[in-house]
């Protein structure tokens, strides 16, 4: 037993030491300047914001914006070249990987929340969405209230899971069992396809993306009024004001030059997966609001 306790202590000390070691790595801009590399965290199936294309490479709306930020970093730091590295991550790994310094910026479909700001920081909002349900057309489910005695699946650790739980609790909806929590979009979709679950709760854009990428898009339907507000932004580590400024400046320039709308059109209207999710007035207004003057 003593030996075991010793091991626990040793592991804890090691963890603390490795923490101290990364603390010296310094800020993101310094790291980019020294290594001439920017590391982008991405998702595998957040269609069409951040996902793996047919060639197995990360691509999407958020990735395109981040590639522009990488270019801007190269210019700002006067580097002869900048290498872009991609690291795949999941909602469960993204914040630890960012705080540990494994990735410099996370470009996918992460909701900007006050809670997350305790640990990390966000660039300005570049996409707006909210929670809805993906169901089979034949299921008869039109809103979350119709979920009585039905199985609801969500990705563990998403804002949608929390929002759905709140809806269920406040509206006293008696779903079957508890919300089934899975690892990622693909597994949630598999649960739906195999009829293990009746509805998948996620951001509507993600759901339209999954529907468009599925074997038989006509079989599926995105339903319900929004029951959460999910503004997306790129995640960066805290206390990196210079990097955040660079990111926000890049986004502003993209909006002012009209490139932002072009990037949006490329991925959403109708986009490589035929998602057909036109630029909303709300998002257009948001672009105007975040394009700060010089």
């Amino acid at each position: 037993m003593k030996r075991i306790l010793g091991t626990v202590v040793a592991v804890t000390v090691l963890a603390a030491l490795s923490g101290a070691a990364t603390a010296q790595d310094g800020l993101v801009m310094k790291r980019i300047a020294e290594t001439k590399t920017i590391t982008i965290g991405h998702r595998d199936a957040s269609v069409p914001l951040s996902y793996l294309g047919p060639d197995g490479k990360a691509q999407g709306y958020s990735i395109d914006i981040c590639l522009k930020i990488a270019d801007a970093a190269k210019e700002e730091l006067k580097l002869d070249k900048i290498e872009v590295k991609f690291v795949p991550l999941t909602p469960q790994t993204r914040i630890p990987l960012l705080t540990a310094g494994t990735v410099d910026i996370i470009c996918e479909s992460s909701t900007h929340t006050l809670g997350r700001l305790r640990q990390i920081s966000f660039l300005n909002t570049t996409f707006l969405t909210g929670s809805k349900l993906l169901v089979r057309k034949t299921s008869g489910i039109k809103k979350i209230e119709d979920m009585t005695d039905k199985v609801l699946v969500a990705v563990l650790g998403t804002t949608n899971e929390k929002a759905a739980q709140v809806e269920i609790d406040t509206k006293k909806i008696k779903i079957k069992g508890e919300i089934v929590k899975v690892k990622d979009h693909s597994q949630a979709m598999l649960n739906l396809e195999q009829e293990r679950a009746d509805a998948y709760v996620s951001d509507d854009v993600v759901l339209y993306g999954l529907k468009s990428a599925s074997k038989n898009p006509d079989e599926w339907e995105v339903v319900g009024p929004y029951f959460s507000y999910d503004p997306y932004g790129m995640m960066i580590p805290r206390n990196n004001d210079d990097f955040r400024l660079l990111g926000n400046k890049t986004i502003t320039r993209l909006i002012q030059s009209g490139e932002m709308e072009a990037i949006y059109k490329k991925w959403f209207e109708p986009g490589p997966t035929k998602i057909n999710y036109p630029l909303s007035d709300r998002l257009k207004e948001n672009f105007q609001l975040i394009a700060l003057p010089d």
Partner: protein
Amino acid sequence: MGSYNWNWPILLKEPYFGWIVSGFGKTILIAVFAWAIAFPLGSAIGIARTADNRALRLAGTVYVDIFRNIPLLVQMFLWYFVVPELLPADWGRWVKRDMPYPQFITAVACLGLYTASRVGEQVRSGIEAIPRGQRDAGLAMGLTPTQVYRYVLIPVAYRTIIPPLTSDFLGVFKNSSLALTIGVLELTSQARQIEEYTFAAFEAFTVATVLYCLVTGLVIVIMRIVESRTRIAGTIAVGAQ
């Protein structure tokens, strides 16, 4: 990690404390139920692999080869997503929709069947470690093969393999964390959930680590006691110190 905000007290707040307790409970339940499948089934397989009957030996070997050679994570997926599709439609539908606690039961069955292949190998090696002469002597005295196993081979073999069996028992606790991939909210996935709600990743996982160490430490202590209580003087069953 210079920018990390430590927040230990959050783990004592509800619902997070309750999540840890419930996750820890599920981890223990998965491990104990899986072991309840693995131990008897593994024993049967181990004995079959040393039997004189060729068909029995072959069946044991095939089982061990299949279950030991496929990664456990893949097995979890196969049991959860593929097997229900292979069943007759009505059964598949029952497994997917009406079976209570589908993720939990799948995880227990998968882990139990996998661990049985490992237990089977331990039992086989325990029996094979006994000199052939003992089996022959038993048969020469007029004991039936069943009696030879019951009174001669098994009592010695099980004592010999207590140390490696302890490792497999520990393995069940640790491998139970893979159940999270099919949606069981056991200790590791509760730690992840706490992380997502509170952003206290390092705190949650430290607690999970400590709990895993405590339960495996307890198993080691119990198995040592079992080992010393059952030791036969003069046999090789001295065990690892």
